[in-house]
């Protein structure tokens, strides 16, 4: 054979046989990821993986560092993305037809019901995870320099997540959806409460404009459905994907997860996977400081407490991905996504409830549409966005409940937050509010003096007290954030479980009068 002449045909045949091997080599250029070097090239040679750094700090790999909440959110997003695309095979965004198509998905589409259930549960998991993830970032003070901007990106992602979930709510076109969206649209219109009181609605009707743009018409109809559909399957997912990409990229560029200053003293290195690098004084300094913010890897002299991301970080990520999938699939098996009767614009649902994460707002909306639906949420949202710019302290970064006050202040705030909101709500439920006592009271007074604003004011007072007591902005933020989280929980629970037809208080849904 060795003397065989290398004819063109021969070469062609030889190359053809080598295609599988060559293809594999072309795709995985670095070789098997077994050594430090090939593992590194595995990460940075892959478009999807190179968002990760090549090596990951042991601090970041502890389960308690993040509880995996960011990855859970991402995983839930991926699950909704895949299931959502599948549902689009059968979903038809037109009134009545939409409802029929959901019925088809429920009853006859192969795996349709299961996939719709997963979609619905993954969406809920995502909302929960994104809120918890935000809480984690806050309680570990991870928003501080240089991560202020990434906190803001996350801040946008929170809103996008809620918007995605809310726009998906209309698509089945059942009573549940129709009336929740009607209420949502009227909340968008609620700035009229202010403009009406000022008598300038005719000149500048912001509320009316918002509602009209959202619905595309004066009622919730086919125009609204196509708008919500477009937002749900196109605009918001694109916004989401772009924000996520920036969010991930910034994690890397901001030097990975936030770590305490003395992190290397805190990590015990005994795992066999831990193969130290940068053990000697480098011969020359890597000029990375300008590119990567944070502590440059090459400057220190001690061993870096890092392990290769491949495979340690990826096991963790895949583990959480599959764990999230498991949770969604399990929930989808035991509980069907709701589908009530076909939307009927003439017969309102009673009670018409928004998705659960808006029920806290709906609870304060029941006093003032503007304050509950726009005023207080905007205040919270702007407050959240300002946190990294107001708290420029350094104590406790990267640690749970780090900073002045710490876990003890958080606990106090929790007690205060729960107690205050429960007390104010109980008072309003038991004794009514201004309108019940003085039927002629102007709406503007209620807009600025209602249980929602009272709770907000009480929380603010407590936060100022904490700020002065510990002489620290971080302490004030800890107190305020915890209080609002508790208030959110209390109001959501009341809205979900204790409000029945006509938004009347009931101890249990079993006591709701049948129609």
């Amino acid at each position, binding site marked *: 054979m060795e003397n065989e002449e290398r004819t063109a045909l021969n070469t062609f045949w030889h190359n053809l046989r080598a295609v599988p091997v060559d293809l594999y080599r072309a795709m995985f250029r670095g070789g098997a990821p077994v050594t430090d070097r090939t593992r590194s090239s595995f990460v940075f040679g892959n478009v999807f993986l190179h968002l990760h750094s090549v090596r990951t700090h042991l601090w970041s790999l502890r389960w308690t560092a993040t509880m995996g909440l960011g990855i859970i959110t991402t995983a839930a997003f991926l699950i909704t993305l895949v299931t959502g695309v599948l549902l689009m095979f059968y979903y038809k965004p037109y009134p009545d037809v939409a409802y029929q198509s959901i019925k088809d998905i429920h009853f006859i589409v192969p795996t349709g019901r299961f996939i719709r259930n997963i979609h619905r549960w993954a969406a809920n998991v995502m909302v929960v995870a994104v809120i918890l993830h935000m809480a984690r970032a806050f309680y570990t003070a991870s928003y501080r320099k240089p991560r202020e901007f990434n906190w803001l990106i996350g801040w946008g992602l929170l809103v996008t997540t809620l918007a995605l979930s809310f726009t998906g709510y209309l698509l089945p076109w059942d009573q549940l959806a129709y009336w929740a969206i009607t209420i949502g649209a009227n909340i968008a219109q609620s700035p009229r409460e202010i403009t009406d009181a000022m008598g300038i609605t005719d000149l500048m009707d912001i509320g009316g404009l918002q509602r009209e743009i959202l619905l595309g018409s004066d009622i919730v109809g086919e125009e609204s459905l196509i708008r919500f559909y477009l937002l749900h399957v196109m605009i918001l997912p694109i916004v989401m994907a772009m924000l996520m990409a920036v969010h991930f990229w910034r994690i890397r560029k901001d030097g990975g997860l936030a770590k305490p200053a003395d992190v290397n003293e805190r990590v015990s290195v005994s795992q066999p996977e831990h*193969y130290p690098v940068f053990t000697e004084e480098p011969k020359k300094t890597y000029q990375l400081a300008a590119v990567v913010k944070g502590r440059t890897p090459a400057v220190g002299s001690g*061993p870096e407490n890092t392990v290769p991301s491949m495979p340690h970080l990826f096991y963790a990520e895949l583990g959480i991905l599959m764990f999230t999938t498991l949770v969604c699939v399990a929930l989808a098996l035991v509980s069907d996504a709701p589908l009530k009767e076909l939307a009927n614009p003439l017969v309102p649902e009673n009670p018409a409830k928004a998705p659960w994460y808006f029920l806290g707002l709906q609870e304060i909306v029941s006093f003032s549409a503007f304050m509950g639906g726009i005023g207080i949420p905007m205040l919270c949202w702007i407050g959240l966005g300002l946190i990294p710019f107001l708290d420029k302290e350094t104590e406790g970064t990267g640690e749970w409940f780090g900073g002045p006050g710490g876990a003890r202040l958080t606990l106090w705030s929790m007690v205060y937050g729960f107690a205050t909101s429960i007390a104010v709500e109980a008072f309003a439920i038991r004794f009514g509010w201004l309108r019940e006592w003085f039927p002629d009271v102007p709406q503007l007074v209620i807009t600025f003096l209602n249980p929602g604003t009272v709770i907000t004011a009480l929380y603010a007072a407590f936060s100022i007290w904490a700020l002065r007591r510990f002489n620290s902005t971080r302490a004030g933020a800890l107190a305020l954030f915890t209080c609002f989280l508790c208030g959110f929980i209390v109001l959501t629970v009341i809205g979900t479980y204790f409000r029945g037809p006509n938004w009347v208080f009931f101890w249990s849904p079993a006591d709701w009068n049948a129609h």
Partner: protein
Amino acid sequence: MTTKPKEKPSRFDPEPLPRRDFLGLAALGSMALALLVSAFGMLRLPKAAVSASPAKKFEVDLPDALPAGEAFVPPGRNVAVFRDAEGVYAISTVCTHLGCIVKALPNGFECPCHGSGFASDGAVTKGPAPKPLPWLKVSARGNSVVIDEETTVASGTKV
């Protein structure tokens, strides 16, 4: 620090090769399995379980004055119905080439898409059509006839 100075490896040392990692392989394998099953489930979704088309069997009243050999096309159906001395028969008007609807002419059928031509009994006379137009099952019900678009019969069967 836990690593003792004398054991302290250098970054210029070759990294020890990992031992065979059964746990990791099992984990990855089970994940691949789960993803494979879910991919299979997802691939099933686009194939509809039932097609949303109305019944292919329909009843039609033929006009009393239908000349022999003249086609009667029931509204909304791709069938030409004929009546002559020997009885009633129906020929599909879906071209056997690529599914265009052929036009019934006095002496046969003509396809507008790629120029196939058919004789009045459905046999191919020109063009790319590979098969003759099928004859459909016809049965009498009272004064009207029932045509079953899904059942073909031998050419020349008249009822």
